[in-house]
């Protein structure tokens, strides 16, 4: 028996074996998906550590609230002192400042992407645990925007345009290539500019 005949025989035998047992494979994808439920792939060690060190969403909101309240107290106090010291000061506008939303550590970060014929655009990134955050184009001019309050740090993200990955945001600070495609990187706050 020639070698290539043997190879062909092995190939053919295995293929026919799979074929005859193929009923076992019917609906396997549904069974796997059902078994997975709604769980996501496990976090890598780094992500796990990052999540452990980062405050939970609840804790973060509590932190924001405390910071906000503290800032409000200081502002009010500052205004009260300023008002007290200036006899003729035009402070009409000042109380409004005190009533304005309390500043927090978070920076409002604008995500903008021109996508003229898109039906939906969202941004996914490390800030949202790679969950999609939709961008809006209310005036229909093809410029999609979202403004997200983000604590200082380094973020990896990408846009998803009609279900397709778009990793190179022209406004990004840098790009990385991971998992076969590009992702954008942006630094918020004191994390340093540029890559």
């Amino acid at each position, binding site marked *: 028996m020639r070698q290539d*005949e043997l190879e*062909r025989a092995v190939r053919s035998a295995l293929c026919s074996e799979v074929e005859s047992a193929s009923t076992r*494979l019917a609906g396997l994808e549904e069974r*796997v*998906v059902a078994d997975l439920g709604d769980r996501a*792939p496990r976090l890598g060690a780094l992500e796990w550590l990052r999540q452990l060190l980062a405050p939970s969403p609840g804790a973060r909101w509590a932190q924001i609230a405390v910071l906000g309240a503290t800032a409000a107290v200081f502002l009010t106090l500052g205004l009260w002192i300023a008002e007290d010291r200036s006899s003729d000061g035009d402070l009409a506008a000042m109380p409004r400042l005190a009533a304005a939303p309390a500043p927090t550590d978070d920076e409002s970060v604008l995500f903008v992407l021109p996508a003229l014929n898109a039906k939906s655009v969202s941004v996914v990134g490390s800030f949202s645990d790679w969950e999609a955050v939709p961008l809006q184009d209310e005036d229909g001019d093809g410029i999609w925007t979202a403004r997200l309050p983000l604590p200082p740090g380094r973020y990896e993200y990408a846009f998803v345009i009609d279900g397709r990955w778009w990793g190179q945001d022209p406004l990004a600070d840098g790009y990385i290539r991971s998992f076969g495609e590009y992702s954008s990187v942006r630094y918020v706050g004191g994390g340093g500019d540029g890559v």
Partner: protein
Amino acid sequence: MSRAKPPSGEPCILGTEEAQESVYRVQNEVSLLRASLAGETAAWGEIVARYKDAVFGLCLGFLRSPADAEDITHDAFIRAYDNLRRYNLEKRFSTWLFTIAANLCRNRLRYRRNHPVSDPDVESPGGIDPAAAVAREERQVRVRDGLTQLPYGYRAPLVLRYYNDLSYREISEVLAIPEGTVKTRIHRAKAILKDLIGPVGVIDHETG
């Protein structure tokens, strides 16, 4: 049936009847993996649909039991999903997936060795229609029997080479053995198999 050499991961049985009207259907592999990574299990379902024949064939080749192969195929896809973040893009996805399946197969074989009593007898794979038991089928049965008798260390690389169409380098990655060893084992496996199949002899060029 002559089998056109499929790209690795491409099943040799095309389950067109399983084709789903799904957006995932048209997405490329990386997009599907991205979506899976974001927790979209339906995208993972499409990956399963694309690779299930290849993984099942590997498991069946390794384990020689359709029931075990079905179990391990299922487990391999669950395991791969859970560990998707560990997938390194420098490797082909199929190679990574096959590595998981091969490791699970090895564990199952070890379990079988340690639990010989509870081990269900290894089924003769098949379910061949007796009416179709023509000479070609007989030859296939002999090859299958030969594969079953072939020691695992020889059978595994042979299956990866001729069923999954992996290169020697990829086989060495999947089985975690040096590439040189892969070559010699495949060479030796073919020699043993030839002996096992016996002098039945000539295997015709198969016609589709």
